[in-house]
């Protein structure tokens, strides 16, 4: 068995929130182990003063000293997990600055997370899996070309996607709403194979990603079962033909959103948010339904409107929808309402997640929501950049899986 991936924990509060065991269990389930970098009192005094972030909480000072020990190579680790209490301003500042400090001064992958007493191992699993993948599978993630004949399946919370690829080209794809995880995957695969004109028997390797990756992966006997953070990063820079250097990937999904700071196709820091439906593709689906238009028409409609003309009093999916309904009743145009909904989602992702990754161009938006032009436009305005939406951006996870799966052809 491979040696566990060693994840250094920098934290304040998890033991007292009853979540330390959840962190340990999440790490264990992906073949990693949590450890606390060993520093002395003298290190704490010196390093805290040297970094110059004058915080009052001793445990945050300890976290600073531990971060410096990692960056300066006094202590070895494969990855870093920075975690502090949700709603603590002091800790949030330290969490952000340490994440940035480590990212800029070392090659260690970092993820930061603010927990509550309700945080479970399940919530942390995808983040830990991504951390261990980046640490353990750099060689796999370095792949830039798809080879052979491979199948990628992305079993998402809203939709299931499948693509068949051969020698760096997409032969066919399948897309449908997720109903029953395995059944939907079978159907998407059937469609992708039909379009490609190849039989299942000819497929040389299979990769799965998304919420249903384990179930679908088992069903299809996949060679690679991988969380969506690393797969989507890879898929995004591959499709955007920007595999080298820095990039930022934004994926607003049906159930959670990802913002990933990528370097050479490998995630450096990333955030995943998923508490609020008001910041998801679901909100836009509901808006489209309310406006009586197909979700595909929402984007072009939003581009014709002006979001500022509609008062939105809440980010909440329930109260936000109510604001939109009130605006329609008060005579607002559907175009303005569509624009306001797009702006609301973009703004929420901007405020809650994009502050935790360093935005470097190109900014690549992927996933089904990247096809909603109004949303891309709103995000571009907020970030003041031209956002890149690569071709087939809705198939990002499936393409990333097919690409990475080619590393497994012939039992490689």
């Amino acid at each position, binding site marked *: 068995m491979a040696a566990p991936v*060693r994840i*250094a924990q920098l934290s304040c509060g998890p033991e007292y929130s009853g979540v330390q065991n959840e962190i340990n269990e999440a790490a264990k389930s992906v073949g990693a182990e949590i*450890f*606390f*970098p*060993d*520093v*002395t*009192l003298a290190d*704490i005094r010196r390093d805290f003063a040297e970094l110059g972030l004058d915080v009052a909480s001793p*445990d945050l000072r*300890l976290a600073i000293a*531990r971060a410096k020990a990692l960056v300066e190579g006094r202590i070895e680790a494969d990855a870093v997990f920075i975690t502090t209490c949700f709603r603590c301003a002091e800790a949030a500042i330290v969490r952000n600055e340490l994440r940035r400090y480590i990212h800029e001064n070392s090659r260690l992958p970092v993820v930061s997370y603010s927990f509550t007493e309700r945080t479970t191992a399940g919530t942390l699993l995808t983040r830990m899996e991504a951390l261990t993948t980046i640490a353990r599978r750099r060689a796999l993630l370095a792949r830039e070309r798809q080879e052979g004949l491979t199948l990628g399946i992305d079993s998402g919370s809203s939709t299931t996607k499948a693509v068949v690829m051969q020698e760096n080209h997409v032969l066919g794809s399948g897309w449908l709403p997720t109903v029953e995880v395995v059944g939907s995957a079978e159907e998407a695969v059937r469609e992708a194979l039909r379009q490609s004109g190849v039989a299942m028997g000819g497929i040389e390797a299979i990769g799965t990603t998304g919420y249903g990756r384990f179930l679908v992966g088992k069903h299809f006997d996949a060679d690679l079962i991988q969380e969506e953070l690393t797969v989507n990063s890879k898929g995004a820079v591959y499709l955007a033909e920007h595999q080298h250097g820095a990039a930022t990937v934004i994926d607003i999904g049906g159930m959670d959103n990802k913002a990933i700071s990528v370097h050479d196709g490998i995630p450096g820091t990333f955030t995943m948010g998923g508490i609020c439906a008001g910041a998801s593709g679901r909100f836009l689906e509901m808006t489209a339904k309310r406006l009586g238009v197909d979700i595909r028409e929402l984007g072009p409609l939003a581009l014709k409107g002006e979001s500022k003309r509609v008062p939105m009093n809440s980010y909440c999916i329930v109260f936000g929808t109510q604001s939109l309904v009130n605006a329609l009743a008060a005579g607002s145009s559907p175009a303005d309402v569509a624009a306001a909904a797009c702006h609301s989602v973009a703004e929420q992702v901007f405020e809650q997640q994009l502050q935790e990754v360093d935005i470097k161009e190109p900014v690549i938006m992927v996933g089904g929501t990247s096809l909603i032009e109004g949303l891309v436009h709103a995000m571009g305005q907020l970030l003041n950049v031209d956002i890149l939406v690569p071709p087939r951006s809705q198939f990002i996870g499936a393409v990333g899986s097919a690409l990475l799966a080619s590393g497994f052809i012939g039992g490689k």
Partner: protein
Amino acid sequence: MKEYIPKYAGTVTKYVFVESPSTRPEELAQRAYEVSEGAMIKETCFGLQVTGRPNEVARIIGELRKLDPNHIFVKDRGFPPGDPRRCRANLGGARPGYHGHEFEIALLPNISHGLEAIESGKKEIVPSPVTRIPEKLDVQRLKMMMDAQEP
């Protein structure tokens, strides 16, 4: 969720630190074994830990303090000795409390000195709290200083 069945229920654990020019941790440990009567003694780099029923531990601590009263210091511990949940080998680094001890141990000579001064009946000790808050400047004095700066 896994069930938790506590070990060592009904016991207490105490740290015994020795910071002395004349008593070494090994001597402390030797004395502890002599008087332990079955209570658990665990030697450490700074002294030892005693685990047992509260009255047993109190008796042992009483005996140990006699060895070098002004240089032996005792503190409660929540964990029993060698608990894997707190062990440095498992955590990768010291438990958080360790650094707090590291800080206070450096101050123990000042405490020992204070204890000795009391014991010797030193008269001139003013038992006022050490506050180190500078006294406010007298208003009249401030005015004089300001006046002195006038061109």
